[in-house]
């Protein structure tokens, strides 16, 4: 798909999340609010960010972008701000904008720029964070969000734990099957920069050196 079409796709995803009936439906329950609505908004930005990164290799931006995106996302996951976005339309608007442009966009960009080690590092940390968040939601005695019931909170906790498991299982299966090698090859051909295999190292194919180069400026 061409880059500008991807950007439209991203905008479409965001718009879907903003449609009043959809937004109302998703915000009615805490699990869908956190596990569907927020990912829709950030995901739309991420699709666009990844599209922007095409043909603009800048490996050094990967880690800072991912960190910035994660921080923004983390901020809007704080229960106090989930409540605030429900109560005040202005906060909701700021949240939508920052989830799209300050969370999704840098996450998509950074992901596209990142090499396999950084990507897996992000996934491993995301899994641990999701598990910790889920566990907190399950055990904390009080309600964290004023707007939702305790049962919703427990469901969200379960959902986050399941998500953590899915992330780990997905990444593990991909690594077993060699998914990231396909990525590296794809990037190598995209940039069409032939690199020498190491002379004394028969198994060090182009793929490896491409994988290495892609992380270096």
């Amino acid at each position, binding site marked *: 798909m061409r880059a500008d079409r991807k950007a439209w796709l991203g905008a479409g995803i965001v718009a879907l999340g903003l449609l009043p009936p959809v937004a109302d439906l998703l915000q009615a329950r805490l699990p869908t609010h956190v596990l569907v609505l927020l990912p829709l908004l950030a995901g739309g930005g991420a699709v666009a960010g990844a599209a922007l990164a095409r043909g603009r290799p800048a490996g050094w931006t990967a880690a800072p972008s991912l960190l910035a995106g994660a921080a923004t996302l983390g901020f809007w996951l704080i229960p106090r701000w989930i409540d605030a976005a429900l109560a005040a339309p202005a906060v909701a608007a700021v949240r939508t904008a920052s989830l799209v442009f300050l969370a999704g966009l840098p996450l998509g960009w950074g992901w596209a720029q990142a090499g396999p080690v950084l990507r897996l*590092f992000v996934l491993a940390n995301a*899994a641990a964070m999701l598990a910790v968040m889920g566990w907190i939601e399950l055990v904390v005695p009080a309600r964290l969000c004023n707007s939702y019931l305790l049962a919703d909170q427990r469901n969200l906790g379960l959902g986050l734990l399941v998500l953590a498991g899915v992330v*780990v299982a997905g990444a593990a299966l991909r690594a077993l099957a*060699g998914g990231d090698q396909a990525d590296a090859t794809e990037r190598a051909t995209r940039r069409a920069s032939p690199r020498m295999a190491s002379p004394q190292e028969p*198994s060090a194919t182009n793929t490896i050196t491409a994988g290495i180069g892609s992380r270096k400026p």
Partner: protein
Amino acid sequence: MADARTSAGIADRGRTWIVLYLATAGVVILLMMVFGLVMRLAQSEWIALDPAFYYQLLTVHGIGMVGIAALGGVAVLWHYLSAHVALRPAALAINLVLFMLGVAMILWAVFIGGFAPAWTFLYPLPAVGSSNGQWQAWSAVLDLTGVLLIGVGFLILCLEMGRGIVAAYGGLGRGLGWHVLFAGSKEKVPPPTVVAGTMVVIVTTLALIAGATIVAMTILNVLFPALAIDPLIAKNMIYFFGHTFINATIYMAVVVVYELLPRITGRPWKTSKVFLAGWTLSTTMVLVIYPHHLLMDFAMPGWALAIGQVLSYVNSLPVLVVTGLGALAILHRSGISWDVVSTLLLIAMFGWMAGVIPAVVDATISVNYVMHNTMWVPGHFHFYLLLGLLPMIFAFMLHLARGEDVAAHGGDLSALLYLGFGLGFVAMFLLGGWASVPRRWAVHLPEWLVWDRIAAVMAVGVVVLATVFVVTFLLRIPRILRHG
């Protein structure tokens, strides 16, 4: 620019870093051994020690040895893996920095903040000790944050090794040789080192993710005691992490056996289907047998304990058998002339295999009722760590110290003495366990002192010989680096 740096990295394969890792490991091993000796002397009532200080030493000795086992093990693995797979030494550097930082935090937390819940930081001990004034809450947070940092370092290292294996072999499944094992392919058969490296990457990464989760939860619990989690789930996660992490260190270090024995004897170590099957079996089983640490927890579901017992019997066996038989096949009528390196390798194989026996005994539920938390437990793990893992690391150090020359250089007496003292030391733990001496007690009854005292004497011998090995290596470092 990137390419110049990259190919230089492949050429020297991070040699300077490997030497730095081994030097760090050597020095810390000696220091931790001295801490262990002090604990034994205190239990012997030969020196007077504040019990609180004993528990601090216990905590530092435990976490220090586990961490350094991983650091030394990964040095061995990286050195040999990087001959088969292109790896970027930057990961070694990042890990070492995080490791040092974490160690400094842990030492500060334990010796200045008084944090001493043993290396297993069993939930809810960190918070309990903080609230009843045994140690400062900040020290619990500082210690566990240090543990997190060290975990992050090893995670990066594992991911880099995993990336290298995936890039060179086309997936971790192929690193384990599944295409050979299940599809009969003869292409790109992974050498033993790659197989072991793949296993280590898989199990350590999973262990670290679980470990980070439970450490973070424990930190939160110290800070906000109202955030109480289920202690049994916490224990499950801690042992999934701890058991897997420490086991993997042996699987890292055993690579030196696969690489050196063939060089010494001039006979190749081929990857057979049996070898691959053994490693694949152990990869899965090492992840599911940790419940053998929870056999006394009556609330655990019966099936989990059954898995813990039954698979513990089988777990180590596949790799042990393929390694032991492989080594025997290589050594049989090879006309090898023994010297310190080859003797250490043989001791390592013996220590690993023999150490598994008391481990398996203790993983039997009916035995565990009696032996649990007795000295039997340190008995079995010191057996395969002191006499299995460390000899592998020492052999690697001495091998590098000789400029990787595999001709026999003598010195096997020192290896045999190490074995002798080590066996004596370990036997006293096991005998103590046999007599139901509890583990982790600062003060012992008069009836128990006999084992403590013999062990203390033996430990002196172990420390002396370990010093000989480490100092030999340290003195040769300038030459190793020059000949790099």
